[in-house]
């Protein structure tokens, strides 16, 4: 967490007060929550009433996808198509799958190009297949694995051509890219604390004032009657501090992280010349901003099993990620890379390196020093079994 967020949250932990209560400690808590809401709104181009506090990205995504789906279906039973990109986080993909299995939804997965980006014409063609049958569109702002940034404003505009609400999972974007909820045209936007230097378990759904959304959680109706549950005041204080701080520092940090990331890629390719960068070009531009997340380096190492690389790098004190694992812990080939057209073997031999506010040039140098022998050993160990079909 950012030091300022730790300080603000620690301070708040020492105070009692239920933000829903009318007594003085309740009023004080309410004030902290509402000031936090206003700060988040200001930092993200939203109105305070559009900030719905949640427990994080998963809840926000579920609320947006299921809640908007239910509201749209209730208004018109023909609207059962859920259009989501094939590279979404599982919080969106699995929520959509659940709607298919239990609520009569029809899933329309949107193809991405080789960089992992949804093209506006892809969305337009998909919406036009059944203009009266579309419930909602959900396309992430920036991909969590390969870092590709989508042209959100343009995509939201396409959805609106058909009168369909547009949700974007901006968990990776807020606090590092320029995210302006109003300017983006999105009807709903997911953000979460732990990705921007705030606490775990605290996030928000920015939900347009005129967007109908059926609640997932029923009860006291604390958050605009869209979300119930006693608010976790200290976490929300930490969250709002982190949002304010990270958004203010974003332009500077973007440049810093991109430079460090470019250095990382250079260092790795100096040792492993056949390593391939996945996603968009490092210097790509989309809608006037970066075409890929500045702190993201996603690389494929031909002939290696991602598992082996991760294990050997871990032994060298370097943390990285292969994508996702099933509940028993078996690494799965990334659905993002597969959707981008990679074969299974490439998908399994890939690693994501994420740089953040604690990353240093020494970290990058340490990776450069280790990666050559790590890849050599992983190549000797060869491929394990191809991926499990289920997991």
């Amino acid at each position, binding site marked *: 967490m950012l030091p300022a967020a730790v300080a603000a949250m620690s301070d708040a932990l020492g105070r009692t007060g239920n933000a829903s209560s009318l007594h003085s400690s309740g009023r004080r808590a309410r004030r902290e929550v509402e000031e936090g809401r206003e700060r988040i709104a200001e930092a993200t181009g939203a109105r305070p009433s559009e900030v719905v506090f949640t427990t994080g990205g998963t809840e926000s995504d579920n609320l947006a996808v299921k809640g908007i789906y239910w509201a749209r279906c209730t208004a018109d039973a023909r609207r059962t198509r859920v259009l989501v990109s094939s590279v979404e986080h599982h919080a969106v993909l699995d929520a959509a799958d659940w709607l298919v299995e239990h609520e009569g939804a029809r899933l329309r997965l949107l193809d991405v190009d080789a960089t992992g980006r949804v093209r506006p014409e892809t969305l337009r063609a998909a919406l036009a297949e059944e203009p009266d049958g579309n419930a909602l569109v959900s396309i992430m702002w920036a991909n969590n694995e390969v870092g590709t940034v989508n042209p959100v404003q343009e995509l939201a505009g396409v959805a609106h051509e058909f009168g369909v609400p547009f949700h974007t999972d901006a968990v990776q974007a807020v606090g590092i890219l320029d995210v302006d909820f109003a300017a983006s045209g999105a009807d709903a936007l997911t953000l979460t604390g732990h990705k921007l230097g705030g606490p775990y378990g605290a996030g928000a759904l920015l939900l347009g004032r005129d967007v109908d959304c059926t609640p997932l959680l029923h009860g006291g109706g604390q958050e605009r009657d869209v979300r119930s549950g006693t608010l976790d005041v200290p976490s929300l204080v930490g969250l709002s501090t982190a949002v304010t701080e990270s958004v203010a520092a974003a332009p500077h940090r973007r440049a810093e992280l991109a430079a460090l990331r470019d250095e990382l890629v250079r260092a790795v390719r100096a040792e492993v010349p056949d390593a391939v960068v996945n996603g968009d070009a490092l210097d790509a531009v989309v809608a006037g901003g970066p075409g890929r997340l500045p702190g993201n380096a996603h690389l494929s190492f031909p002939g290696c099993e991602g598992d082996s690389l991760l294990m050997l790098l871990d*032994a060298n004190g370097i943390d990285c990620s292969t994508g996702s694992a099933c509940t028993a812990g078996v690494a799965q080939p990334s659905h993002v890379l597969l959707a981008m057209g990679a074969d299974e073997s490439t998908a399994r031999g890939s690693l994501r390196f994420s740089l953040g506010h604690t990353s240093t040039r020494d970290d990058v140098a340490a990776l450069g020093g280790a990666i050559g022998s790590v890849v050599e050993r992983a190549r000797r*160990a060869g491929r394990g*079994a191809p991926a499990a079909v289920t997991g």
Partner: protein
Amino acid sequence: MSGGVDSAVAAARAVAAGHDVVGVHLALSRTRDAMRSGSRGCCSREDASDAARAADLLGIPYYVWDLSEEFTRDVVDDFVAAYAAGETPNPCLRCNEKIKFAAVLDKALALGFDAVCTGHYARLDPSVPRLRRSADADKDQSYVLAVLRADQLRHAMFPIGDTPKPQIREEAARLGLRVAGKPDSHDICFIPTGDTQGFLREQLGSRPGDVVDSASGEVLGTHDGVHGFTVGQRKGLGIDRPAADGRPRYVLGIEPVNGTVRVGPDSALDVTSISARTPVWASGVAPEAPFGCVAQVRAHGGTAPAEVTPSDDGVTVVLSEPLRGVAPGQAVAFYRPCEDGDVVLGSATVAATH
């Protein structure tokens, strides 16, 4: 690390001995909801999480390796094929031979590790290499390790073989390992229901044949497939008439080609000579001359003094006392008796009995 107490203590001992240890749990099943109650498979979610907790407590990294494809091919398919061929396979033995000390070991060596350490009850001096029975005679697993070649044994570690199981549980409790009281596993891990016949029926379907009296050749009944029978089996023969002498009848032999199951009296079960194929020698050197040893044909029990004669296509084992329930497909392991624990000389797969 299976998630059980034995591999957890084995890992703890390896860590205590100063080794650089990484915990590996093997994912061997392709079914998504492998979480089971009552019965423990090699790859249930609960076991994976028990293994992870043990590794966390020991302060070692922990990974899950997906070897489900190798396991399916080399162990499960082999198991089914052996039954279809009228043999009686031992999948645990095959798993040690092909998975734990082959697929896992090869990958580990390539990644820069020196050995695969498991919670098997056996004692090993890897430098010779010399494999011996465990100190706990009831738990001894040297039989299912007797298929390992010298080059596999040189990279194996069995740190708990010198300790009786109750003490292993005490040690686990002392270390704070939650699995200290976890029940032992007994079932074949990929048949968690314990219903081997049902599993084989599902895999092989119906392959009808006759149940025939071994002496007279008379057809006594029919059956749905030779995979329903094991040599020495008494129950479930599907014969509605008692034998002429009123004594129980047993499966004496299985002829998979024509689907015939031969039955007869228990006296005909006595085996005094075994032809066995594909011998493996723990020392890495095949003996040239006949040698005396103790032969063992099952994981527990079933031992007899024997003379083993190597030949071009295997070995001949002449038993000095008859053994029962010896079936093709089983392993016969050879031991040199020793006060500090019988030494494994090697093993071979039973091809025929006399």
